[in-house]
């Protein structure tokens, strides 16, 4: 006996039923995630902005425009401006070498790139104190030549470079590995130089991944606390970044000012998330194009 034909609607319903969780479970899972996010993310963010604007916008602006706060903002921007480009160059070079070439020590390099992720930020800062502090390896030499690294801006920049090391590289390495090296080989065979190949073939292919890595790198560079705290010396108006300034204000019970300055970082977080989502969307489009 021939089986009864199934209509498309029935087939879709069956598919729906059998391939997804039943509705109540789905809603339960989504609700759990939302509660979790709400508690750990939305609430704190809302709290920061509420507390910052509690005493009114005049107080808010005064807190941000206060000289020490401005100095902290300048230092944070300076740190980001130096460390992000440095790590950009480093990340691209490392990813290029790892994805396109074979060489001894490749896996060691990969491990080293991941090192800042596995080390506590406090230890990261401590490394530099041990190297460049007065009792450190290079301490005496630096003191003799009147160079200040620890408890000065150079130390802060160094510590930030270290902790933001991996972001660009880690984003680019799998991307470039999955893209292979055939396009580059094709360019070489056609007569292009190494540099031309890089700028005309490789770079355009990785631009969205690169942007993604830079955004993450920047967010971390501006928000780093632990490592910078160790090397900074907390000298008001000189060696405080925004996170450090927030800590000082809070410890002085100046909550309104503390939250006001903190709201700058919260704003940065929101902007970062927005740009990141946009880039992710573009990345998906790009990989969808490549059949």
């Amino acid at each position, binding site marked *: 006996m021939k089986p009864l034909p199934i209509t498309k609607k029935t087939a879709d319903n069956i598919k729906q039923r059998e391939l997804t969780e039943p509705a109540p479970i789905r809603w339960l899972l989504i609700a759990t995630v939302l509660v979790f996010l709400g508690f750990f993310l939305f609430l704190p963010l809302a709290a920061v902005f509420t507390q910052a604007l509690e005493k009114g916008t005049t107080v808010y602006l005064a807190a941000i425009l206060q000289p020490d706060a401005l100095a902290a903002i300048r230092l944070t921007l300076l740190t980001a401006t130096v460390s992000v480009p440095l790590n950009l160059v480093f990340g691209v070079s490392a990813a290029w070498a790892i994805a396109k070439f074979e060489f001894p020590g490749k896996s060691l390099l990969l491990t080293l790139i991941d090192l800042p992720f596995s080390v506590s930020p406090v230890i990261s800062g401590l490394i530099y104190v041990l190297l460049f502090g007065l009792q450190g390896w290079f301490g005496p030499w630096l003191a003799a030549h009147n160079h200040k690294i620890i408890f000065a801006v150079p130390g802060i920049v160094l510590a930030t470079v270290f902790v933001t090391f991996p972001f660009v590289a880690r984003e680019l390495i799998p991307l470039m590995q999955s893209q292979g090296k055939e396009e580059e080989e094709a360019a070489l*065979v056609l*007569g292009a130089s190494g540099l031309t190949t890089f700028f005309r073939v490789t770079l355009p292919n990785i631009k969205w991944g690169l942007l993604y890595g830079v955004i993450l790198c920047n967010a971390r560079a501006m928000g780093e606390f632990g490592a910078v705290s160790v090397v900074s010396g907390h000298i008001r108006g000189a060696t405080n970044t925004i996170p450090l300034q927030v800590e000082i204000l809070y410890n002085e019970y100046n909550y309104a000012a503390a939250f006001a300055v903190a709201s700058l970082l919260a704003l940065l977080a929101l902007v970062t998330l927005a740009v990141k989502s946009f880039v992710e969307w573009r990345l998906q489009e790009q990989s969808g*194009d490549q059949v």
Partner: protein
Amino acid sequence: MSIEIDSVSKNFGPFPALRDVSLTVPSGELVALLGPSGSGKTTLLRIIAGLEKPDSGNVIFNGEQTTTRHVRERQVGFVFQHYALFRHMTIFDNIAFGLQVKPRKGRPSKAAIHARVHELLQLVQLNNFAGRYPAQLSGGQRQRVALARALAVEPQVLLLDEPFGALDAQVRIELRRWLRQLHDEIHVTSVLVTHDQEEALEVADQVIVMNEGRIEQGGTPEEVYDRPANPFVYNFLGNVNLFRGRIEKGKARIGTISLDLPEYRGASDSPAVAYVRPHDIEIGLSRQHPEEIEALIRRIQEAGAVAHLELERRDTGEPIDAELTRERCRQLQLREGNQVFVKPRNMRVFIDTDYEI
């Protein structure tokens, strides 16, 4: 431009990809490097291109030492199996790339580049595709663009690495014929790597059969197909039936069949294997000759224009693969279960050295 490969060897770690390989590609010829995976054919092609360096040996272009010359100075065109088109550039920019990256002095004007690109688009029959991107093209179209891109810089040598491997059967056949026509027009020295023996036999002037880093045989398609030098070549170039027997002082006895083989005149009594192609198996319904082998038809499979028969020998139970045209099969009214008498034609006998297929 002629290519000479002189005693080239290459190892990847412990794996010997090429073992002391020597070969000459005369100017203007299309040579196919044919072999299974791991035979070293792609490695050899990449060494010719300059994308790999040999561990020892020489690569000589037109009499000039080229072994250490950088890939971008060799003036070769390379077509990759997966096209390797520049994904973020238009088809126009892809084809123009080689011309655009020439050093200032040798670079043609924008107008000249424009003209040349359109000339090539015309050649590969993709005139209206200049503004499209690779992702918008089918596999066959992409490969034609890749070919146009390689030809743009007027290379002296064209190297193709399994160019049709990633395409459907129909497109593969069309492009293969088209490539041959192109070669007949342009006469650029070409080396084609493939594992498809049909492709090699159809397209090439010379077929070089490779296995495990060595050249097994080199010759015209007729030579390697009709007069294979050893069991590997015979087996690789098509299906094969084996008949075992013995050979001594120039006379082979394969079952009931005797053959005179002068090339084995000096052979002492050794086991021998005779190789016969499925289409060289003659089938008759009644015994015409005492040498014929009695067999049972186990299965008839009519695939396309050819009927494949699976036979079983009465005496040993061993299988025999035969091929007939469908017409002939119908003429003889062959059915599964029929008893038939089989006579192998055109046997190629080799001394059995325990070669495993």
